[in-house]
């Protein structure tokens, strides 16, 4: 994504806010771009930086081929500072570097742009240090903070930035991208329900773990419908061994949620929306006979609650046992 018009296709609102402020030369001193992974935060941040430094801007668009634009893309522009987490979080030294940078004049121009990636990983101390400079920006400084998780930005930082919300990618467009990358139609649909990051989806699609996970999940539904007595054994032997990590457990529940949603859609005859099952699947018909729509609603509720419990650090075995009890009841 090299131009604002390209951004406008995915992020019409954000693109309009920013292009308008550029046109009226009212670029804010600090932006907070929040949106999920793959929504184009970095592309927008780099575009703003390029537009600020571009030698021959074409309206709101940077030219993308002057030395300034090229250097911003290659990370070599001396007045554009990009801070990304070093490991888990943004470290104190990185903020100290930034602080020093604030006190110096620019290298080539009096403009300065700094981009803080994953601003939610700033520790509270680090965030408070940055605060000083958000509060009293020196002339012609633009701060762009990027985050996936807007809730972890401390309110004092948030209140000093112009917040721009990026909307999640539409799943149709995302599916198109996945199909373009060579994924099958069925897989692309499932992936688009689980994530909106192309790389993550492709990574899952290639690995064995995800295929196995899908199999285990379908087996669970099968066992619940056909051999209810074996279900605890199955949970202990297959489910918990396969979904061992926290994020894997959450993903397992996501998959289960999608499957039960499909069964409900089958009842409602809303077959276009199904993502896990094919329309002609025997297992699906079997499951639809077993669960009434009312029952399905309460199961969906229970799965959401189970996810919540995992987040609250309740033991995963207990969570799964309780969930299966609820499904059986």
């Amino acid at each position: 994504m090299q131009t604002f018009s390209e951004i406008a296709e995915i992020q019409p609102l954000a693109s309009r806010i920013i292009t308008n402020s550029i046109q009226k030369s009212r670029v804010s001193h600090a932006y907070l771009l929040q949106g999920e992974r793959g929504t184009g935060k970095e592309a927008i941040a780099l575009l703003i930086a390029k537009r600020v430094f571009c030698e021959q801007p074409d309206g709101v668009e940077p030219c993308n081929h002057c030395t300034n634009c090229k250097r911003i893309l290659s990370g070599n522009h001396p007045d554009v500072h990009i801070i990304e987490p070093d490991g888990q979080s943004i470290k104190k030294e990185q903020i100290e570097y930034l602080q020093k940078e604030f006190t110096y004049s620019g290298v080539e121009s009096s403009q300065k742009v700094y981009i803080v990636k994953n601003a939610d990983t700033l520790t509270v101390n680090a965030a408070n240090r940055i605060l000083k400079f958000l509060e009293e920006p020196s002339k012609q400084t633009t701060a762009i903070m990027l985050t996936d998780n807007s809730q972890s930005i401390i309110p004092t930082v948030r209140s000093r930035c112009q917040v721009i919300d990026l909307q999640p990618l539409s799943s149709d467009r995302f599916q198109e991208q996945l199909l373009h990358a060579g994924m099958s139609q069925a897989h692309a649909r499932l992936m688009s329900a689980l994530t909106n990051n192309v790389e993550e989806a492709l990574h899952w699609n290639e690995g064995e773990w995800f295929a196995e996970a899908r199999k285990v999940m379908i087996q669970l539904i099968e066992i619940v419908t056909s051999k209810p007595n074996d279900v605890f054994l199955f949970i202990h032997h297959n489910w918990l061994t396969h979904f061992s990590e926290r994020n894997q457990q959450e993903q397992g529940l996501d998959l289960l949620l999608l499957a039960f949603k499909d069964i409900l859609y089958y009842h409602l005859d809303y077959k276009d929306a199904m993502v896990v099952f094919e329309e002609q699947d025997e297992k699906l018909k079997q499951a639809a006979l077993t669960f009434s729509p009312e029952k399905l609603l309460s199961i969906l509720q229970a799965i959401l609650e189970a996810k919540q419990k995992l987040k609250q650090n309740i033991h995963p075995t207990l969570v799964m046992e309780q969930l299966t009890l609820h499904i059986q009841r």
Partner: protein
Amino acid sequence: MKFIVQRDKLIASVQDVMKAISARTAIPILTGMKIEAKKNGLLLTGSNSDISIESHIPVEEEGIVHIEQIEEGSIVLQARYFPEIVRKLPEKTVEVEADANLNVTIRSGKAEFNLNGQDADEYPQLPKLQTDESFELPIDLLKNLIKQTVFAVSTMETRPILTGVNLKLEDNKLSFTATDSHRLASREIPMDSTNVSFSSVVVPGKSLNELSKILDDSEETVEISVTNNQILFRTKHLNFLSRLLDGNYPETSRLIPDQSKTVIHIKTKELLNTIDRASLLAKEDRNNVVKLTTKSNQIVEITGNSPEVGRVVEEVNVDSIQGEELKISFSSKYMLDALKAIEYDEVKIDFTGAMRPFIIRPANNDPILQLILPVRTY
């Protein structure tokens, strides 16, 4: 790009430029060294974004040809490898050639190196120098100005503007001021032969330290010009650029008291040595405090005291004491720094009471000024 250059010339230039290059930088291109070949010579550039050093090798100098077969162009080479290669090459001349794909070939005798270069367009563009907006200073004077002020800059980043030296050129007077809010050092020199003036630029203390290391005593004058973001110090072969500190330097002239209640004239060396001895028993975690007490008959007493360690008393003869009696405590470290900076044999110290800052000046009224805040003791 292509040129053949005398190896010793290249080594000297590379060494100068390397002083600005650091291995850890935020911008990847700055780990490299820019080499620019032009009709009139070679220009090498190194930078860590705070300071940049450019070194120029002319085509010929006093009839001796340094560079031959120049084809214009520029390239950025890895500073980790290039200097070592140049140093260890076998012959007296070095041939450097870069092709359109940024491949660089370095030849000397039968040795041949192929290095991957980087695009010179990626390198930061240093501000163009404007010679009409510049003024000249003898190098030894500039070094002196730096030496007499730069020690007083703040080392703490809490007030970043104080980590620099404030330069001012107004009414044909050039002044250097540095303070860390506990002490202040300043010096003024007359500048008659210039019509340039600027009200206040703040140059980082670190940059000035580097500058005084790199300036060669054998050359005579340095040309200084100030742009919006950078200050340029220019000698015959060397351009030294430093970024400036952003912000307003505090108004320091009002801090300097214009009246005094007690004036002491004293030999610099004697006072320096006495305070140095007294500071032996002044503890570092308590600001190295020593105490000065005026006695009658042109004698002052210097004491250092740490209850856990011991006590030192020494009397010094002074040339004259005028005004009220005085007991004052101050940091021996600041006092030593200040006395060392004044390179005259006799100093005049103006006190305005035990709780007010005092000023140390050379006895002959040369405009060097050192101001120190006293320490409150009981």
